[in-house]
């Protein structure tokens, strides 16, 4: 009873940004002492608890006092160091593991050079690096989560399967160098393996819908961190070039064969660790971005549709255009997914939900136009790996968005709960994995490795 109430109190105090968990622990020790002393003076547990909490003082002014003492805390939230007074060594150990894995990934991408596979210059083996790109860091990322979540032994064996299979497929199949199927495999393998990372992230409980949603959230935050790190890396690169050029040194070789490849793979692990370490802090970044961009993209698509109808111009089907429309759908799906992930499932339908539905419908109409164009193109020129891949992707996303729209309408008309929309999204995740694996494994065989 008392423990329960202290637990509630602790959870309540923890929500204050300015009061760190270690401080909460200290305050809790105080509270317990006070309760004990009052108990010894003859008060019942719950009375003692109430008085002890009251004596602790008003939580608002207390957290204001803490904030004044630690004004940097509200900012420090964004930096990783948990503060010098943090007594736990877990955080440190985890940082070491993450940095170690990032270095391992950098070593992994440099290793093939010892065997004569150059990463840069005229004799660069770009097709080897493109095919194997995700294998340099995603196994390590999966390993990080297997370690962090203490995945059991059977789970670890299962986890190894997709990575071993991927390594075999991309290196044994006789891809035509620079051929379409090779490019497609290189593009789809990261997606396929990313969902394998999700298996480790969910500690093997990949069927659990909540875990899947957590992984979706993780992916979004990871992407944001990665983009931030990439931006910082870009600034670093520019300055490196600039200052060494100023003294007449050519450092391009260093940037291209060391900084860039090592940074690109290392940042994957560092971002993942940052998301894990700072989970509670920037958790809300992806939803904020969705709120900001959902209206803008809706307007964009509406204007586009009006333009198409007004001028009657069709879509020019080229490879870039196909990819562009697929990406557009991915983006709309992302906007949908992240607003779902942050929404309170209990809340009644609101204006934003209607806007979201409008966005989905616009995307569906735009996509129908694109699909029609692709189909026309296929019937004219026949199948090619690129067109089939684009078509498949399009269908996969179309089915998702189409059914999402249906569920959304049902939700807005109060015939379904919001949870059913969330469930539909998480239930659909394996479809992406299946399609990505199909493109990686079967497309080369189907299209004769062209």
């Amino acid at each position, binding site marked *: 009873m008392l423990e329960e109430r202290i637990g509630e109190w602790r959870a309540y105090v923890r929500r204050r940004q300015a009061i760190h968990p270690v401080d909460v622990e200290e305050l809790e*020790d105080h509270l317990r002492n006070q309760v004990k002393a009052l108990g010894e003076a003859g008060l019942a547990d719950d009375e003692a608890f109430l008085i002890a909490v009251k004596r602790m003082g008003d939580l608002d002014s207390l957290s204001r006092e803490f904030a004044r003492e*630690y004004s940097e805390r509200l900012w420090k939230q964004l930096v990783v160091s948990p503060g010098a007074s943090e007594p736990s060594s877990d955080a440190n150990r985890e940082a070491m593991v993450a940095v170690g894995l990032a270095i391992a990934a950098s070593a992994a991408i440099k290793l093939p050079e010892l065997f004569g596979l150059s990463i840069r210059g005229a004799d660069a083996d770009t097709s080897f690096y493109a095919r194997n790109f995700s294998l340099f860091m995603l196994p390590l990322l999966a390993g990080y989560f297997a370690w962090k979540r203490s995945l059991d032994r059977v789970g670890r064996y299962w986890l190894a399967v997709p990575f071993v299979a991927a390594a075999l497929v991309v290196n044994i199949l006789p891809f035509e160098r620079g051929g379409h199927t090779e490019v497609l495999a290189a593009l789809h393998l990261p997606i396929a393996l990313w969902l394998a990372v999700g298996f480790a992230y969910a500690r093997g409980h990949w069927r659990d819908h909540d875990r899947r949603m957590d992984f979706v959230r993780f992916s979004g935050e990871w992407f944001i961190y990665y983009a931030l790190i990439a931006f910082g890396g870009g600034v670093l690169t520019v300055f490196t070039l600039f200052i060494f050029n100023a003294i007449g040194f050519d450092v391009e070789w260093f940037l291209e064969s060391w900084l860039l490849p090592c940074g690109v793979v290392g940042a994957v692990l560092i971002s993942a660790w940052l998301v894990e370490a700072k989970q509670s802090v920037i958790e809300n970044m992806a939803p904020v971005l969705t709120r900001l961009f959902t209206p803008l993209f809706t307007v964009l698509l509406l204007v586009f549709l009006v333009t198409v109808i007004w001028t009657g111009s069709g879509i020019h089907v080229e490879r870039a255009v196909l990819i562009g429309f697929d990406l557009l759908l991915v983006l709309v799906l992302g906007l949908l997914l992240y607003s779902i992930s942050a929404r309170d499932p209990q809340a009644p339908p609101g204006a934003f939900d209607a806007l979201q539905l409008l966005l989905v419908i616009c995307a569906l109409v735009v996509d129908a136009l694109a699909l029609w164009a692709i189909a026309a193109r296929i019937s004219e020129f026949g199948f090619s790996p690129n067109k089939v891949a684009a078509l498949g992707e399009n269908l996969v996303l179309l089915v998702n968005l189409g059914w999402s729209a249906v569920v959304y309408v049902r939700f807005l008309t109060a015939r379904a709960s919001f949870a059913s929309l969330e469930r539909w999204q998480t239930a659909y995740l394996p479809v992406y994995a299946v399609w990505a694996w199909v493109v990686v494994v079967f497309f080369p065989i189907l299209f004769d490795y062209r």
Partner: protein
Amino acid sequence: MNISKDLVAASATPLVLAILSEGESYGYAILKRVGDLSGGELQWTDGMLYPVLHRLERNGYVEANWGKSEAGRRRKYYRLTKEGLECLASQQRQWQVVDSTLRGIWFTALDPAPQGT
């Protein structure tokens, strides 16, 4: 008697430092000592002690480490440092000046009758 907020705040630093000069201690025990010393007259809002302790720690007047309580829970103990001792001495001098000044004026202000014979 209610002691004003400002006075409580001003006396917090010397009081905490002085209590810690008796030896290592922790939050709850410090507050209890304050209560005992003042005969219960000086009442703090319990929680407010901690930001004060943390400020002293940041300024290097006290150092903290995590130990164990009798019940085996983690507890943060505070100890006075050399700088803390110096600070305490300087605070002491300041308060003595305030104290003797006030004492000087109390006689004439509150007790107009001539003292002694």
